[in-house]
């Protein structure tokens, strides 16, 4: 029936679209960390609910943050 399409009642909304004061910045590992798993992987769009535009910015920012060692590529001590 319908439960395949509507498992959850509410559609997730992009957090960056909803709150314009929230900025994506590669220098801010605290915010970026919300969008990575414990292991340090980037959380996919289907889970985070981000819109395509912001997810793209987010991956870019996370990758930059990784390069300057603000975020881990892999977190081993979990």
């Amino acid at each position: 029936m319908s439960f395949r399409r509507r498992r959850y009642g509410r559609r997730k909304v992009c957090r960056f679209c909803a709150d314009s004061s929230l900025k994506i910045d590669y220098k801010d590992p605290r915010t970026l960390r919300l969008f990575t798993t414990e292991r340090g992987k980037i959380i996919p769009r289907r889970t985070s609910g981000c819109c395509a535009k912001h997810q793209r910015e987010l991956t870019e920012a996370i990758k930059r943050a990784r390069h300057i060692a603000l975020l881990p590529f892999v977190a081993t001590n979990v």
Partner: protein
Amino acid sequence: MRHYETIFIISPELSEDETGAVVEKFSGILTDAGAVMVKVENWGRRRLAYEVKKFNKGYYVLFDYGAEPAAVTEMERNFKIDERVIRFLTVKQSDEFDAEAIKAAAEAAREEQEKPQDEAQAQEEAPAASAEEKPAEAPQAEDQPEQAPQDQPEEKKE
């Protein structure tokens, strides 16, 4: 002129004077090449997320400046040579550079940051009272979609 931002990490083993000298050296390279520094931020010694050149900590420095591309390549060439710098990253902020506009924007952002904090606090307190009802409903809607009143009837017909 383009607007750039560079972050680099200096070895944590150096003394304060020595790290200061490194920062001087690289800001000197930039200004010699005709760059205009907007700000230099010392983030201080921080823990690295992973080991870089056998170091677990590093001294972060942020440069915000306007320069020609040649100045940046010159600085990065020197970063590679200098063993005291363990990592660097340059990001182009925009193709045009206007020092005054950037300063004005920075000040506006600072003022805005101060104001919304008060508003945000007020907002947080206000919904807290009315939010008590909503979360009670929301989880139900998530767990048992059949009870969600609006969309459900149509889909059942299908």
